[in-house]
């Protein structure tokens, strides 16, 4: 059994999308996808959505997008978490042979809520929440521990931001399209040492949709299906103090398993493009290490080598990544969509020539707790 991505659609990512509710955002991408594929809602067997209740401000928030995703009086389910996991859920529905096609949609209007308070609510209310820890301060702790252990400099971390912002310039969907220099990053206001304002992502609103299909249906819908070749997920301890904080061990385990399934022995050689969910500058360096693009502690040297830039051996985040468009909880599905665009040659100015195998990494929780690694291949 095989499962293909047969089409993807994205909104423009930006903050304060005040003209659309989040249901209307999902409608925009689903309608776009229907038109692109020449299908109607009747051609969709089942719908999976991915979102976060606290960001949407409603419980069982998927119930509020049914009109927009076309799931009224239809089979529907949802992942409360990152969109990469919603992709997996949808792929399983196709692989179960119960449905020929499954629509997967992920949305977020994270600029509408206080992301610091929403992320603070991840922490337990007995020992940790009162401290006010959130996605920025916990990232500061992790960056400090990682960078100190391996001697990574703030300049090396800043290079990640410079690269991703430069790439975002080529992505019409990207939120922040402004090139910056290492100096700009280093001189931006310190928010949580060693992380400065530009080491951290914006808060973006948007939605992404894709249609998955079995082999037979995929052939009818597209000439360029994108096949799932490998998958694994792995979760680290809930309590930050129970992790080592200097290495993304759960991601490392997930990557090994996904590589095994996809038959990847040398990721740098075997993977043509990677789209990863980097939640702060140094995080992307940690991701390089966990994905085996370089050795442990060598993330800094690896960004220095330039191999993750557009012309490098393994371009990472040609889309501009999360540092350019942070649609929290949709980020993972955006990574999958971007890999699909690359493997079908539809990535426009951000296209990696001849990309045949791509990796998408989605995560949720504080400091990469939940990790999902997906390997895709074109025909």
């Amino acid at each position, binding site marked *: 059994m095989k499962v293909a991505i047969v089409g993807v659609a994205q909104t423009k990512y930006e903050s304060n999308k005040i003209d659309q509710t989040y249901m209307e955002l999902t409608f925009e991408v689903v309608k776009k996808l229907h038109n692109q594929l020449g299908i109607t809602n009747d051609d969709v067997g089942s719908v999976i959505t991915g979102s976060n209740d606290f960001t949407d401000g409603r419980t069982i928030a998927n119930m509020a997008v049914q009109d927009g995703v076309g799931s009224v009086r239809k089979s529907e389910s949802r992942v409360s978490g990152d969109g990469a996991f919603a992709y997996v859920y949808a792929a399983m529905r196709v692989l179960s042979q119960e449905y020929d096609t499954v629509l997967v949609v992920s949305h977020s209007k994270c600029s509408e809520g206080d992301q610091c308070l929403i992320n603070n609510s991840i922490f337990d209310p007995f020992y940790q929440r009162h401290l006010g820890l959130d996605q920025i301060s916990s990232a500061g702790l992790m960056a400090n521990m990682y960078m100190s252990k391996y001697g990574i400099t703030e300049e090396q971390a800043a290079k990640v931001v410079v690269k991703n912002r430069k790439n975002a310039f080529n992505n019409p969907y990207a939120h922040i399209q402004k090139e910056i220099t290492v100096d700009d990053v280093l001189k931006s206001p*310190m928010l949580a040492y060693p992380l400065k304002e530009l080491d951290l992502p914006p808060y973006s609103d948007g939605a992404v949709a894709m249609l998955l299909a079995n082999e037979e249906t995929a052939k009818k819908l597209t000439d360029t299906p994108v096949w799932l070749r490998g998958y694994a997920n792995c979760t680290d301890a809930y*309590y930050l103090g129970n992790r080592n*904080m200097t290495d993304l061990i759960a991601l490392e385990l997930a990557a090994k398993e996904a590589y095994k399934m996809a038959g990847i022995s040398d990721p740098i050689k075997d993977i043509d493009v990677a789209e990863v969910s980097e939640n702060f500058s140094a995080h992307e360096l940690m991701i390089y290490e966990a994905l085996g693009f370089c050795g442990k502690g060598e993330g800094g040297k690896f960004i220095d080598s330039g191999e993750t830039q557009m012309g490098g051996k393994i371009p990472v985040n040609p889309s501009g990544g999360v540092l350019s468009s942070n649609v929290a909880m949709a980020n993972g599905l955006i990574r999958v969509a971007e890999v699909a665009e690359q493997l079908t040659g539809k990535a426009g100015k951000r296209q990696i020539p001849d990309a045949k195998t791509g990796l998408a990494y989605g995560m949720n929780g504080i400091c990469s707790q939940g990790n999902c690694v997906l390997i895709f291949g074109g025909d």
Partner: protein
Amino acid sequence: MVRQKGEFQIRWKTDLPYRWAIGKLAVKYFEELKKRKIMGSKCPKCGKMYMPPRGVCADCFVEMTVDDMVELSRKGTLMGFTVVNYPFVDPNTGAMRPFPYGYVICQLDGADTYLMHFCDEIDHTKFKIGQRVEAVFCDELPKDHESYRPELKGDIYDIPFIRLLKDEEV
């Protein structure tokens, strides 16, 4: 949320109250904290010492009970730090919290896991990973200190912060 030009807003405020059970280990932790004791929980199988105490050892998938709780040192080692320098709504009060303030992640002597807490140091150049730190109790502070309380109450503010120990104190 800042009101955008021409934006139509409907505003309301709702309390969403919970009465969370904190579990027997946390009750014991706070009872002992009031007696100036910092307790962790030790896995009866692998011996890993959890601080703060947890009910399950994730490594062994084994339950830990109040009988597995052991007193730890108030001193430990600094593993990481950050200094928060952005406006933040205090989740305890709903009001803006003054900033900057320090956070540390440290390993108390005898513990195998890390504790995150406030630190009274706000100059990032003063922290050194690997240096010695100490939990400060509220009644030991000068009376005019904002975190001073004359007695321990068995809540999280009994230890208002971790302090960095000076070389001569180690």
